[in-house]
């Protein structure tokens, strides 16, 4: 404590700080309280503003079930001004394969995922800006007719028994989101 504070003030400051720490401990516990109980919203309510304000939301569900894929490849499909099909990386510079951060991102953009519709809208905006900008110029994409699809090429793991019997790890599953026109 700063030495210019009187003993009484110092004690008061320590008390308030101590109460804040108790509140923070309770908040961390509350935000991890199971969400699907009858008590959940009552437990969470006193802390919701504090948690949101300081971005203290936390979710520790990493690997609460198996990863379903042996490999995940993401492709942006578009066309140049001559109609030739182009297959691009969804990010520049070139996507690093098996980067866990980027697989997290694209699982949340996956067609059947309800994780974040705003995220998909944001992705469309960013990709359209890219295709209409410098990258589009290099690839000779017509900026008046830009559209793209996002392809999710999953090497989906087979069951252990299937792998033991066949020696083959996975089956290819391709899902697409789009096509999306950048002129909207």
């Amino acid at each position, binding site marked *: 404590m700063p030495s210019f504070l009187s003993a009484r003030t110092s004690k008061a400051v320590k008390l308030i700080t101590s109460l804040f720490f108790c509140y923070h401990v309770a908040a961390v516990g509350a935000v991890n309280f199971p969400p699907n109980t009858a008590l959940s919203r009552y437990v969470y309510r006193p802390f919701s503003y504090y948690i949101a304000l300081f971005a203290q939301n*936390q979710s520790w569900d990493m690997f609460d079930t198996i990863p379903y894929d042996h490999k995940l490849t993401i492709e942006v499909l578009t066309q140049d001004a001559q109609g030739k099909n182009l297959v691009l990386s969804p990010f520049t510079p070139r996507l690093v394969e098996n980067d866990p951060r980027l697989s997290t991102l694209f699982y949340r953009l996956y067609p059947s995922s309800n994780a974040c519709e705003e995220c998909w809208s944001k992705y469309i905006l960013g990709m359209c800006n890219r295709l209409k900008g410098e990258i589009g110029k290099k690839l000779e994409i017509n900026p008046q007719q830009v559209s793209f699809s996002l392809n999710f090429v999953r090497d989906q793991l087979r069951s252990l028994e299937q792998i033991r019997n066949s020696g083959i790890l996975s089956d290819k599953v391709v899902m697409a989101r789009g096509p999306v026109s950048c002129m909207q």
Partner: protein
Amino acid sequence: MNKIIDKLIGFWFRPTDSWSYAALRIGYALSTLDQWQSIWRHRLDFFGEMASIGINGTKMYSGAIPSIFTLAQSPNAITASCIAALIAAILLICGIANRICAIALFYWHYSLAFDLFPAISGYDMIIKVMGFILMVSPLGNEWNIQRVIGAKKSRTASHSKVPVYGLYLLRWQLFVIYLVTVWLKTPDQYWRNGQFLSYFMMSLYSKTPLPVFAHMEAISVVFSFGTLLVECSIPFLLCLRRWRFVGLLLGLGLHIGIGFTTNLQLFSLAILVMYPAFFDSKDLAFLREAFTKIKKPLAASRA
């Protein structure tokens, strides 16, 4: 009432050695650097005018203040923000301007929470919550560059005492991380039948995703159940002085094992750097004594 207040204050403000905070500070900065390098090469895709991700400007944004990337939109501003975060992390490792760097880095992590979504992972959250606690903790003056330079001139170093509250907050946070993750795993059929590890080692997270792991189901059962047992034991073992080093060894084994066999090294680092919150000067003294006991017979046998 006064007694209760004194006990409460005494609990949170009990004096402790500051070296634990120094270890936490350095570990936090190192994990921030590891996280930073994973973001750096895609920074113009992640942030600013050309961003493909982020929830800034959407109804999902709930922050108190604008994120740095709301203010830094152009490519040069984004690059400058990232370099500022890099400098703050390096200064924090060196123990220079600790408080300012801790605040700056928390602002960086706070901004990432919004601007990096949905590319944000568990290890980003671990570093972020640790950063918040360290931002409000006494960081002490141990293990900094001035001491390293000064140690050459003087053998005596003063070890300051600081309040323990930051360590308690981090211990609680680690408890929550481990126990909640076990709680969420145990209902899953693959954890329950012990097949989790076989699938995991053949997945996109593994460094060696080979079909041979499908033939190692018995080993998978041992390691899957072992993982759950270790994860729910670690926080309790770390709390008990007698078992603290057992908890440390189990944690090191688990997370270094994950780091070596998968591409999730950042996760391992982010968790392990929280462990110093459980250790104090008595544990350090125990370690020194143990090393001295090992060293003496070795020196004698050489002589």
